[in-house]
């Protein structure tokens, strides 16, 4: 988050308002599943944007974050006994509509 805030400022943009999400921490398994869903969406959201990023510097940062999100999701999936790579050999990108649909419940939308 700090790196992205720095980039947005550097490019002369203003920061979006911080979301105030609500998460239900009921069972350990549910927490892992929520985390996996967020990380899967995060990795896919970065992937959905890589071929549209004009700045090489920003692309390098996005890629460096993208694979870390994927690592988190893979580790969570392994703990949950799920497929490490749910999309198979090629990861699926996630676009704005998909991302908002996944994140909506956490944002009260």
């Amino acid at each position, binding site marked *: 988050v700090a*790196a992205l805030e720095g980039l947005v400022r550097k490019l002369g943009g203003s920061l979006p308002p911080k979301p105030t999400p609500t998460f239900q921490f009921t069972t350990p398994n549910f927490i892992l599943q929520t985390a996996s869903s967020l990380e899967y969406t995060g*990795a896919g959201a*970065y*992937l*959905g944007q*890589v*071929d*549209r990023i*004009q700045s*090489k510097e920003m*692309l*390098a*940062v996005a*890629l*460096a*974050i*993208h*694979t*870390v999100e*994927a*690592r*988190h*999701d*893979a*580790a969570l*999936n*392994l*703990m949950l006994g799920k*497929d*490490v*790579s749910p*999309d*198979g*050999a*090629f*990861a*699926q*990108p996630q*676009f704005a509509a*998909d991302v908002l649909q996944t994140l909506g419940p956490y944002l009260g939308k």
Partner: protein
Amino acid sequence: MSRRPQIPELAAIEVAGMTRGSFILRGALAAGAVYGAGAVTPFVERALAQTSAGDIAILQFALTLESLESAFYAAALKTPKLTAASKKLATEFSAHEKAHADALTTTIQTLNAKPGPAPAGKFAVRDDATFLKVGIALEEAGVSAYNGAAPRIISPDLLATAGAIVQVEARHAAALRETAGQDPSPAAFDSPSTTAQADAALKAFGGP
């Protein structure tokens, strides 16, 4: 320097949840497997019209990497000493690397270049511990090589495909690390490798 499409909106067209690039290359792979690479060449050539000589060099490097990874998992699966958990991962990852190598081969052929020969590879896999150790080193080399090369890719289509592949490499690295009792994501940012670092990493595993 940056050669974007004349109508940038075209690059943003989404086909059933996929980017144009990943759609075209996956479609080409599927069609090429059935009808041969020649059948899909004109279609994919148009899609990859912006590809540069640098892109082809990156594709050739990626093919060498994926061939080595594929050979590694094949060698590992012959070792009777893998645990059930490792064997499951090796079986799954082996199929992914094969799919990556096939997709890269088809793409290189479509761009009228000759795919480089698959290196023999040399891997010291004796037991479960050495499987995890070599596997982690190889997958990590892959993640940093793709992340290092991707910003130099000119074609947005190839960039999208490289992204779809590197994400899976990172998932492999994380799963192997966790199985080995290591931190699956040791840093908040995955550091990219330079071309020289990436070449040296492959050489250690029997690459050219």
